[in-house]
């Protein structure tokens, strides 16, 4: 943290100065297999694009950027979703079968760059159910959008409150930095 403060003063890191306090702008990267479903929902919840107290409709999910709209070339691409109310930047990423190892990798790389504490990588796969996996596979992998999306959306609504729980934890962690 001390090195981050020094970098902040040098103007290297993104920082917010509020009166006589400061905090680092955190880059939160929600990741999952395809970067198309659970990570997008989590990012949308974090940004307030979806309401937390009720299940989203099909239209609300389909209106989200990137939701069930990605292609093979999007794997590995860190895509910007927006800025939250604390000025933290929210991203989504599809990392195929790397698992939570990806979180360690991202934070490890940030650390060697001297950006320790600036990046938070969140694995959303633990909140993904079998219906989201099957629906996502049908829709994105083999191109059967019609049955795939139906199963996917049902699965997403079933997993929704789990994802709400996840992002609430992350939002609190990002405020503590």
């Amino acid at each position, binding site marked *: 943290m001390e090195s981050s403060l020094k970098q902040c003063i040098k103007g290297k890191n*993104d920082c917010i100065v509020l009166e006589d306090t400061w905090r680092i702008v955190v880059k939160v990267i929600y990741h999952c297999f395809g970067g198309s479903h659970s990570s997008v929902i989590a990012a949308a919840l974090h940004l307030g694009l979806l309401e937390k107290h009720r299940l989203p409709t099909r239209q609300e999910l389909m209106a989200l950027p990137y939701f069930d709209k990605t292609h093979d070339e999007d794997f*590995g691409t860190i895509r910007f979703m927006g800025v939250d109310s604390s000025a933290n930047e929210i991203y989504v990423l599809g*990392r*195929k079968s790397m698992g939570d190892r*990806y979180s360690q*990798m991202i934070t490890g*790389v*940030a650390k060697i*760059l001297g950006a320790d504490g600036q*990046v938070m990588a969140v694995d959303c796969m633990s909140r993904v159910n079998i219906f989201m996996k099957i629906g996502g596979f049908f829709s994105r992998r083999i191109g059967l959008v019609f049955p795939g999306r139906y199963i996917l959306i049902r699965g997403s609504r079933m997993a929704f409150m789990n994802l709400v729980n996840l992002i609430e934890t992350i939002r609190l962690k990002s405020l503590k930095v």
Partner: protein
Amino acid sequence: MQIIFLGTTAVHRSLIAAAMYLGSLKDYDFSMLHGFGDMSADLSGHPVYIGEDSDGTRVYTLGAGSEVEITCKSIEQLRGILGYDETELVIKPVVSPGDGIIKLISSFPIAGIEKYLNITLSSIILKRNLDELEQDIIAFKKSLKRERKKREQKAASRN
């Protein structure tokens, strides 16, 4: 500057590449390389620090399993998002056919004869195209030198 040699694991081909870059690989005896085949270093997912060259460039290795290309893309984008560029972090993928088998062999428990088998079999596979890797690293070093010279000339002409 930092360099990350990105391979299937952090402790096989990428480690050899890093050692070649630093000039610390003697007689191609991989068992003498510190950490060679030690998958516990790879398991964490963090870049593994190998050493520093004469210019102060810090060298790391990182294992990405079968997703080296995707990982390389992500790290380069992360670098940009954090406000850094290739003058501060360079990612060099080092992959070859056979690396998947090495990863499979390395997933056997490391104790007694299994460790010996892991290192011996991995070494046999890695030595098959070692010359290619060496040429690749030499070309990589040359390109880094060229880029550094270009930047220095640019900086000098601005002054």
